[in-house]
């Protein structure tokens, strides 16, 4: 019998929330890089014209920040870093070769590290973004402060972009992960391999240790 057993990982609200943040991020990264790299100035075209890109970027930034803020409060309590996570992080080599390290819960060490990196970057980006935002807020700050904010904004954006490249790659590399954020479910096999402790928790929650999946209703 090859019927796939599925476990719910993200609800509809969580998925919508995630993709709002993701779409905003891509628009922000493209329009921001356009200002950062002269040769990519044409990327301001994602918002129509260079002037529009300059105007719209910060507003999209606020939407993204609010979206991320919501995500932060959904997930922060899953992201405390434990000794196991440190072990995971120091064993990247094994991980990169497809091995598993430790009895991973809902998130592994890499995912938790990424969570806090994103949180830090988002905070720096929104604060520095407001400091450099013309014509509304920048005039209220002294020029030396604006200079530092510009440097931080560009720097943090680049760190976050590099981080998101890793985030996206990890989701593409570990097969069955995209489904978690698109359909909301993962296979049992996926859960047992990558997140064994979370898998057992789910099984217990569902009140049975074998067979039936506490999955979404309807078709698998």
């Amino acid at each position, binding site marked *: *019998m*090859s019927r*796939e057993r599925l476990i719910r990982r993200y609800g509809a609200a969580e998925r919508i929330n995630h993709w709002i943040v993701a779409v905003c991020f891509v628009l922000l990264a493209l329009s921001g890089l*356009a*200002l*950062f*790299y*002269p*040769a990519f*100035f044409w990327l*301001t075209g994602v918002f129509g014209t*260079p*002037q529009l*890109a*300059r*105007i719209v970027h910060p507003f999209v930034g606020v939407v993204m920040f609010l979206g991320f803020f919501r995500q932060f409060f959904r997930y922060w309590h899953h992201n405390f870093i434990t000794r196991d996570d440190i072990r995971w992080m120091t064993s990247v080599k094994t991980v*990169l*070769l*497809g091995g598993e390290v430790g009895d991973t819960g809902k998130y592994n060490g890499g995912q938790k590290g990424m969570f806090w990196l994103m949180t830090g970057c988002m905070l720096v980006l929104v604060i520095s973004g407001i400091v*450099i935002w*013309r*014509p509304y807020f*920048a005039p209220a700050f002294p*020029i*030396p402060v*604006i*200079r*530092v904010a*510009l*440097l931080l904004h*560009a*720097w943090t954006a*680049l760190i976050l*972009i*590099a981080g998101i*490249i*890793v985030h996206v*790659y990890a989701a*593409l*590399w*570990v*097969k*069955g992960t995209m489904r978690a954020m698109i359909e909301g479910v993962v*296979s*049992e*096999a*996926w859960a*047992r*391999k*990558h997140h064994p402790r979370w898998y057992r928790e789910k099984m217990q929650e569902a009140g049975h240790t*074998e*067979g039936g999946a506490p999955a979404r209703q309807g078709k698998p």
Partner: protein
Amino acid sequence: MSLQSQDILRRSASPTQPPIAREHKVEVAKLIDVTTCIGCKACQVACSEWNDLRDEVGENVGVYDNPADLTAQSWTVMRYSEVEENGKLEWLIRKDGCMHCAEPGCLKACPSPGAIIQYANGIVDFQSEHCIGCGYCISGCPFNVPRINAKDNKAYKCTLCSDRVTVGQEPACVKTCPTGAIRFGSKDDMKAYAADRVEELKTRGYAQAGLYDPEGVGGTHVMYVLHHADRPQLYHGLPEKPAISPVVRLWKGFLKPLATVGLAASVLFGFFHYIGVGPNRADETDHEEDKA
């Protein structure tokens, strides 16, 4: 002020060389002799008149400075400083505005291709139709000169009357100055003239008289003759050693190649990792057996 030109030394956010057919163009300079300025503001008026600018009528804030600051509609402003030197009151008056730096911080900071250009003759000019209103030029400028216009969100500043200079005329302020305190010509001539002025001031007891042509920005195309060249800050905070801020240099310099390498490396690593190691799959069939 947009001019058709093939004599462009630098162009903002442009990785390749802009047209520079006549690199041999003579470098020009405006020399402001602070020691012969009487503070009449004729130059301020001439500037508004030639450039057809209409600043709002402001309020008197208790000093002669009026308007109180540079604005998008006031590209030059007289600054009045009362200082005590050698037991005497000295009224130091400085015509403030763009210095037309040889290494312009505004141009370095600008992200929009061609929104700021530097002509071969040294004039730094904003090409307003390419301006996106980000205000980076304000952060780049060591002299706090550019101002954004609230009506169109574009940055403005003194053009050194690039339109007049192209057709062989001096800037409007120079033409108007009733005492001859503002001169215009080749940078070499202006330096020679300034040297004479400095000599004379020295004979009149201003031992520290000198020319303000700060090296930190590669020299400027607007220069001052100062009685107290050792302390330019006396003149309404004229910076002693202006230079593009190291923060701006870091942002516009070192960070870019570093970022390029970092981003390219993460993408390439991902690509070759996938090709090399292959996808990470959970075996969907194994648990059927061990369940049994």
